[in-house]
Every structure is written in C-alpha cells, then in structure tokens.
C-alpha cells in the first residue's frame, strides 16, 4: 500500500456482548458463516489492503485463537519481517491484566515503538465486512486528520459499549457520544471500531494519557477533545454486520443466505481462514437441502432448510433442521426436529429430540453438550 501501515487487532474487546459464544473463547475466535472466525474478516481486510504486520492483542481465553491462527500462513502472514505478532497481556506479579482499551494500548507501546510503519489501523473483531483499509488510510492522509474513525449507518445497536459520531460537511466529527439512547429513533452513525492514526501520534497519545492517569480511550481522549483534535469520520457504505448480541449473531448469519450479502462479503473469494483439509460434503439419498450454506466435511441424509452448517456436521435420516446454525462437528441423529437452534461445537442431539427457539431468542446449546 502507498502508505506503510501496521495493523492492530483487539481480540477480546466486546466479549461481554455474547457471553454464550465467548465464554470459552475470544470474540475474535467466534465461529461464523460455516468455516470462518470473526477475526478472519479483520485479518483478511488487512492482508488485502497490503498490510503485512498485524499485532493481535489478547487478554484471556485465547487458546482457540492461537489454534486458529497457527503461524499465520493461511493469511500469508507467516513472515520473517512482521506477519502475525501475538500480544498477550504483559504484567508483573502485582498487576492485573488490562481492563480498558487504553490500558491495553499502554501494554503494546513496545510493539508500536519498534515498528517502522507510518500509520496504524486498529480494528476490533465484532463485525463482518469487506473493507478496504488502504482507502481509509488514504482518506485519513487527505483529510490531514489526527484520528479517522469508520462508521456505518445503523438503526439499532445492542452492544453494552458503543460510540456514535456526528460529522460536519467536511467529514470532521463535531460530536462523539458514548452509549447514547439511539434505538428506535431512526438512523444514526455507529462507530464500527476501526480507527486510523499515525503510529507516532498514537504513541504520543498513549504516553500523555499515562502521565495524566487516564483510563478510557473513548471517555478521556475522544469525547473530551473532539474540538481540539482533528477526528474525521469515514463512512463505510458496504455491508456491515455488527455482531453485538446472540440475536444479532443469528440475524446477520441468516443474512448471508441472501445472495447479495454473500456477494458483498465473499464474491471476490478473498476472505482467508484456517484450512482444515476436510473432505467435500456428501449429500446422500434422502437429503433435502434448501436455502442453506454447507461447509466441507458434512454428511446430510435429512432435511436442511435456511441453515448454516459448519465443517463436519452430520444430519441423520428423517431429521428436519430449519432456521438453525450448527457449528463444527455437531451431530444431529435420526428423526430430530430443530427450529431456530444454535449449537456450539461438538454438540450431539440424539434420536427424536425436538428443540425450538425463535428468531428473537434462538435456542443455544453450549459446546460439547449431548441432548
């Protein structure tokens, strides 16, 4: 890319929004769309924008993330210079790991100082979108901005912490609010947790925040200084799915069954993920499959409608599965009836069970459960 840029991904922030799925894993490693993890979007966007060094900030429960990332080779990020660099919390015996984004950034100043790139893209793992980060950096430079924040027009948000932006005619942010009451009041600009800065500007900002004893990047730095620092908005017009509750997870997953959404996210075939070398899926006699996404390694003998099946899922004879998301290696035995169910990995549903949730409240079955 024209402007040398390093990436920073926060893997844990927003974990509290989906406790069901992030109890044993980071937000980054939540499985989505049959064969991906949420971090695949942020990582692929970086790689496709020419970023070859990505620091990944972790806090806890990051075994599944490490397993997913491996050496980074599946994203072309196994590099001698750069590549994927895991940044677990640094603390001595008395410290506790960070609790805020600012504290996390303080913990990675060493990484930021040692890099040579001019710009930093900071992204969280709470959404699915195909975003050109190079274009955002370009806009940042053109605007002579100090900070560029990416936003998307939304009508509702369910996150426990979110920021809304109000830009003026030039794109400069005039007002920045944390957790305003916006639901049910029409469209608003939701900050999608992607931010661009000069690397040195970020380091300076962190250091001065440390000196003043600040703890919150949003409250202490952004909202209070909106008049003095040049914060610009970058409106993202493509498909954006903010995954900030189990309900939204379900809703946005089902949107991918729509061709238009799928083309926006995957049309260019450039979202990378870990390769597992499963065999292709098998559809046996008696299988009826409608409007569904089926990942590799599945064996289907029953009926599957409006579903997303992850790798290695088995659907037995006489079973009918509708409007459901079944994660990796889930087994639905024979004559089972499921509607609006989300199974985490390795769930087994025995013969003749009937389970149903609804769109507003999908029935969730935790990892490894047998019913």
């Amino acid at each position: 890319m024209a402007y040398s840029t390093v990436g920073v991904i926060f893997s844990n922030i927003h974990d509290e929004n989906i406790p069901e799925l992030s109890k044993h894993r980071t937000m980054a490693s939540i499985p989505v769309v049959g064969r991906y993890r949420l971090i695949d979007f942020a990582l692929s966007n970086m790689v496709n924008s020419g970023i070859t060094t990505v620091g990944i900030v972790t806090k806890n429960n990051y075994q599944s993330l490490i397993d997913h990332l491996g050496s980074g080779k599946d994203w072309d990020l196994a590099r001698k210079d750069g590549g994927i660099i895991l940044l677990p919390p640094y603390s001595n015996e008395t410290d506790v790991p960070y609790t805020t984004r600012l504290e996390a950034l303080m913990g990675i100043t060493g990484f930021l100082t040692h890099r040579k790139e001019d710009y930093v893209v900071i992204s969280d793992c709470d959404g699915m979108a195909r975003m050109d980060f190079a274009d955002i950096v370009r806009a940042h430079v053109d605007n002579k901005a100090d900070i560029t924040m990416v936003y998307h027009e939304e009508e509702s948000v369910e996150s426990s912490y979110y920021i809304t932006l109000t830009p003026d005619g030039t794109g400069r942010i005039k007002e920045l609010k944390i957790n305003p009451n916006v639901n049910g009041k029409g469209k608003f600009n939701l900050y999608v947790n992607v931010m661009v800065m000069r690397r040195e500007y970020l380091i300076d900002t962190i250091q001065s925040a440390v000196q003043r004893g600040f703890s919150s990047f949003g409250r202490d730095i952004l909202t209070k200084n909106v008049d003095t620092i040049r914060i610009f908005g970058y409106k993202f017009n493509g498909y954006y799915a903010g995954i900030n509750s189990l309900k939204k997870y379900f809703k946005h997953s089902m949107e991918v069954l729509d061709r238009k959404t799928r083309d926006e996210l995957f049309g260019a075939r450039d979202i990378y993920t870990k390769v597992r070398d499963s065999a292709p899926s098998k559809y046996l006699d008696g299988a009826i499959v409608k409007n569904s996404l089926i990942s590799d390694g599945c064996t289907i003998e029953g009926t599957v409608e409006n579903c997303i099946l992850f790798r290695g899922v088995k659907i037995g004879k006489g079973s009918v599965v509708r409007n459901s998301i079944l994660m990796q290696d889930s087994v639905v035995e024979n004559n089972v009836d499921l509607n609006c169910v989300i199974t985490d990995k390795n769930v087994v549903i025995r013969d003749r069970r009937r389970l149903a949730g609804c769109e507003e409240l999908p029935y969730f079955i935790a990892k490894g459960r047998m019913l």
Partner: protein
Amino acid sequence: MQRKKECIAMLLAGGQGSRLYALTNKIAKPAVAFGAKYRIIDFPLSNCINSGIDTVGVLTQYEPLELNEYIGNGQPWDLDRTYGGVHILSPYQAKKKSSWFEGTANAIYQNMSFMKKYNPQYVLILSGDHIYKMDYAAMLQAHIETGADCTIAAIEVPLKEASRFGILNTNADGSIYEFEEKPKQPKSNLASMGIYIFTAEKLFKYLEADEQDPDSEKDFGKNILPNMLNAGEKMFSYRFTGYWKDVGTISSLWEANMDLLGEEPDFDVGNPDWKIHSRSPLAPPEFIGDTAKIGNSMIALGCEIEGTVEHSVLSSNVVVEEGAVVKDSVLMAGTVVKKGAVVSYAIVDENVVIEENARVGDEVGGSIAVLGRNITIGAGCKVEGGKILDKDYKGE
C-alpha cells in the same frame, strides 16, 4: 556425522496422460482434478506424509506449470521442511549433456545427486496416476523384514485385465521368481502397482548399469526389475488389498469419482485417520438454494446450486442454475451450468460455461462426454456422449 534420511520418495509425475485427451492438453496428468477438491497427486503426497516420509522428489516434464504451482513449497502436505520436504525435479541442462527424461529409470538416474544428498537407506518409487490410500511405512517394514533388495507393491486384478499390467509370479513366501511386463498370456493375476521400494545402493547400482546399456529402454518394468531378477537379487512382492485405481483413461477417471459417492463408498476420502491433504480453494461454504434438488452427490466449497444435481461430483465454485440438471457427471472448479441445460455422463474441466438449454452427454449412460477447460458450449447446442471437445462449440 552426515545427516541422512531412512527413506525418501521419488514421484514420477512427468507423464502426459494422453488417454485423458482434452483434460491433459495443458496440464500433466497428476495435476488433473479428482473428487471435488483433490488432484491426483494429492494421493501419493498424502500417503507419503501419512507414512512418515517427509522427503519427496517430484519429477516433472510434460506441461509442468500448473503442477509446479499447485505443489508450491509443499505446505498443504506439511512438506515444507528445512531438511527434506517436497522438491520439483525437472530436466536440466548439464555441463556435458542435456536431455529430457527418457523412460522412468532414466528420469530417476538423472536425479541421482538429489537422492544421494539425503544419503537414504531406501528409496520409494511412486507414480502420479493412481487413486489409493496406502501405508508405505508398513511396506518399508516388510522390505526390511524380508531383507529384500527390491519390494514391489502388488494387487490382484481380474485375470482378463492382467495383460495390461506388469505381472508378478511369486513363491509362497512372496518372493518373486518371474516378472512379465504386459504378458499376452498372464500366468497370474498379481499386478505390479508401480510402487517400488529399493535398498538405495542396489537401486543406484542398477540405474548406473542400465544407463550404460545402449539397447535399454531405460524403464523400470522393462529393464531395471528384470535385470535385478536375472542377477539373482532378492525381490519380494507386497500384497495390497485396499482400493487402488489407475485413472489414466476417461472412463476410469469417471468411475473413480463415482466410487466416492454413497453411504458406504468404495473409496472413502472422508476418513480422518488417513487424511488426504490438498491445496484448498479460497471459498465460502457452498450455497444450496430454494429450487435445488440434490441426491447422492459430493459438492465442494463455493458452489452455488439452484438446479438439480444427482449422482455427481462437483469441485469448488461450480454454479448450477435453476432448472439446470447435472446427472452422473464430474464438474471441475468454476464451471457454470446455465438455466435449462442438462449435463449427464460427462466430465467437464475447469471454467467451462454451458449456456442455457445446452445438452451435454448421453442421458442413459454409455460413453462419457468430455469438455476441456475454459470453453463455452453455446445455448441450445448438443454435445453427444463420447464426444471430446477442447474448443468453444456453437453447434454444427
């Protein structure tokens, strides 16, 4: 102390595969797609890594570009190693003499220095035209236990087909007393699978001797193996009883694909105990639409199916539009079957476009129609069974 490998593999991948016609116009046979996400060479390469053999020389000659690109640094098979790993060995210019590989034995001979670099005790010779899962480590163990100089993997074939193979006539203990290359009247139905383990020093000795013989065809089956036997070297057969298929012809390639289908398939690629590794396509899960009907098929990632697919094998990113029918066929990556088109008993190579209402292949069986890569079959056109096309077809 010199580093060494116990056993290295040499994979003969230079064959043209001329009996696959349009499918091998631009690529070597081992690079031909198979089983929705694999290529033929994935099988010997996966067998190697699953058997603990981590050093593989792949000898290429005919149209190597796509094969080289596919193998790359060997990472999909865990064959990217600092010591060992997979290496592409192509014919090269030497100080005194430059030549193409002439015969299988000459190809191995020309890469003597590659083999010697690893100072191996044993060399496994493989070919890149068979579909099978085999534990070479068990074969190596048998080779060591019998004290053989050469062990040949062998499988029983129907007696009427035996004259197509190299036939081994063996004693009760498995030792070979006679070797017949494609005999008119075979004495047994025990066929050589073209998989040999040699004790390295013997292999080197006979390769060098054979190179000096001006009358030799420089072929393992015709020269090296008979020479060793005549000289009284210890040669054993190693019985293999699993699935093994030569996919050197259109009909055998089609059959082998069909053997993957069903609840208890003749050949199961899905068994996690012996994974077949491959370079995976970058694609989302396949989408099966509201109007789709799928029966007894294997479908790879990235496909978009709105039509009918029965008893077929579809590679990644294939599109079957609403109202289109694909039956008893093999469709390779990126092929598009448009509305109302019917494809049956056909093998369709990569990125073919079959326009609306076209008909490809016989609907009731018979000989397989073949469409080469990157071509378009015009709307409403009919391609009969057994036809082989490698150019756009817009009707007579």
